[in-house]
């Protein structure tokens, strides 16, 4: 009887990036227009380190109109962010993280596939995000551990805030595991701002709207604080904060 494991070869495509033995690949990508990631596939070789951080923010006005003008498509086109990572050499370490802030009627789809093909690798994924307005966010995260890829550590979490009655969030975290000596877990949650935290802040004289902003910032902070370049981190923090403040204004 055949097994279920389907060995899709790690084919190199146009948007593949190969991270060679012992090399380090770090990338922070801010996506606020129609352009997606410059790559959709990473091949991590032995002892390589991959660290990718994706920040998805609402379209800036000029680019949004540009999109509509150029393609004739409406603003509600789905922003599709696919990313596949193949861990092909032992000792590879992959960290994927991201935040998204969706407002108005944006539709964002983020899908990651992490394939552990060899033993002794680790992958860690953290995606936190906020959906307001009429936005629709979809998360798809698939972890595959091949037979014999023992001693794999694979972790994934997706925490989401759903802030308006017309917004919608779907999450599909998936684990497909064919080796036994592994530690794999995933967690996904979709909920609201914590009321206890809000009460705590307000009891200390912080107005409700400001309390919400602070909560939202702290919600995405774990991802932002993981950015190693300090200047870039500060810049992104400021940018995200202003986007969150705009979003908070749309909520009563």
């Amino acid at each position, binding site marked *: 009887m055949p097994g*279920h*494991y389907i060995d899709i070869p790690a084919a190199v495509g146009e948007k593949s990036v190969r991270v060679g033995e012992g090399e380090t690949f770090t990338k922070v990508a801010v996506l606020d227009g129609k352009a997606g990631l410059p790559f959709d596939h990473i091949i991590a070789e032995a002892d390589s380190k991959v660290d990718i951080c994706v920040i998805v923010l609402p379209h800036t006005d000029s680019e949004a109109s540009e999109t509509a003008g150029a393609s004739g498509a409406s603003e509600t086109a789905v922003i599709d962010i696919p990313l596949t990572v193949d861990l092909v050499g032992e000792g590879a370490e992959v960290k994927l993280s991201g935040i998204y802030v969706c407002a108005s009627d944006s539709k964002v789809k983020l899908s990651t596939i992490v394939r552990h093909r060899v033993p002794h690798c680790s992958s860690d994924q953290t995606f936190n995000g906020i959906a307001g307005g009429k936005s629709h966010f979809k998360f798809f995260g698939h972890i595959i551990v091949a037979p014999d890829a023992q001693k794999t550590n694979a972790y994934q979490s997706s925490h989401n805030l759903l802030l308006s*009655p017309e917004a919608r969030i779907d999450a599909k975290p998936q684990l497909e595991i064919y080796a036994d000596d592994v530690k794999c877990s*995933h967690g996904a949650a*979709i909920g609201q701002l914590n009321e206890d935290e809000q009460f705590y802040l307000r009891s200390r004289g912080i107005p409700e709207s400001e309390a919400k902003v602070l909560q939202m910032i702290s919600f995405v902070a774990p991802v932002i604080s993981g950015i190693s370049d300090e200047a870039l981190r500060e810049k992104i923090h400021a940018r995200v904060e202003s986007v969150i403040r705009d979003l908070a204004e749309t909520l009563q």
Partner: protein
Amino acid sequence: MDKNKERDLLNGIEQEEYKEGFVTDIEQQFVPKGLNEEIIRLISRLKEEPDWLLDFRLDAFRRWQKMTPPSWGHLDLPPIDFQDIIYYAAPKKDSERPKEIDPKLEETFEKLGIPIREREALAGVVAVDAVFDSVSVTTTFRKTLEDMGIIFCSFSEAVKNHPDLVRKYLATVVPSADNYYAALNSAVFSDGSFCYIPKGVKCPMALSSYFRINARGTGQFERTLIVADEGASVNYMEGCTAPMRDENQLHAAVVEIIVEKDADVRYSTVQNWYPGDAEGKGGILNLVTKRGICKGSGAHLSWTQVETGSAITWKYPSTILRGDNSSSEFYSVAVTNNYQQADTGTKMIHIGRNTRSRIVSKGISAGHSQNSYRGLVKMLPGAWNARNFSQCDSLLIGSKCGAHTFPDIQNENPTAVVEHEATTSKISEDQLFYCNQRGIGPEDAVGLIVNGYAREVLSRLPMEFAVEATKLLQVSLEGSIG
């Protein structure tokens, strides 16, 4: 632990026998092999059914013909030749003593530990509906239950004696063309249990259905309908076994549960169909649709399942939470060994306000088996303050098996909260070491750890079942340490 010992122990479980694998030699009545409208008419005629039910079957059959089998399961499902199955098999009644149960049948159920004569059991009193191939053999304690207005009988009898109730509720939760296998069941279903608990009645004893496949080349297509009217409560249990054969046999059941306002239904299954031999030959293909609806406010439906048998399990007991403040739980232990495959889980559809659901799924895979959890939690826009928590754990024993988790979480309400957690691991060396160090041998240690791992679910089972389920877990996994 060293490799040789591991191999020995793994071999040990493969040799575990399936003690329910015997065949009862009894004269049976069959309909010819194959599936067409004539066969359906014949089944309907044999069961002396009214026209509306025949129409329901034919309608479902015509829809089924236009459908294709689902392929999204994480399963290697062998092609099923639906023309090569006998759709109806019944033990022949002795024409001289039509009221009595054939002693051979009685012996069969006695051997399986199912009391089909009324008696006080040690663990409490349970009313049993025993189904042998396509017909219900007997239903016990009927009189006692009738006095309280409770109807508990075979589905065929319900069609004869309570046609209004059956018509009112049949296919209201699982429509006849809901999915490929449900449509097939709607066309050819044979027997099953019917249960109606009237308003405000608490059923004084657990009700139980026991399904037995005996005849070669047959399929079993049972249909169960449970209705708990306002404020009623019932504890329902289901068990199943089949003989050892090297062919695959099909079991495509439909279970529908209707829970009215403030009613409470607990549905427990211990599924132990023949799983096939150590090479993956034979075994039951268990393709089942189970669904309940919490219709009124405050309704509660709880599913508990222990799945140890079947070559292939495709089963998603689901709840539609329509009534405000209604709640539902799904507790599952699924064990797969050798070449078994299981794709099982649940769906929780939250429609009403303040609805609550909880999912606890424990998968254990050993040998070359594949064990998947597949679940859907959906919060519709009207599900204000709804809450779900899901915990899905997988335990791997041996390096040739697979454990998978495929949840789908959809939230369309800003006050609803959904949480999902899943982990996959093997029995930790530390735990084993700790046990060994205290003089507990590796086998006992694994038993201890697996039992502890599944405790949360096993403790939800009614007492009569908990003992059986714990034993089953031990038989399925004894010595399977990796």
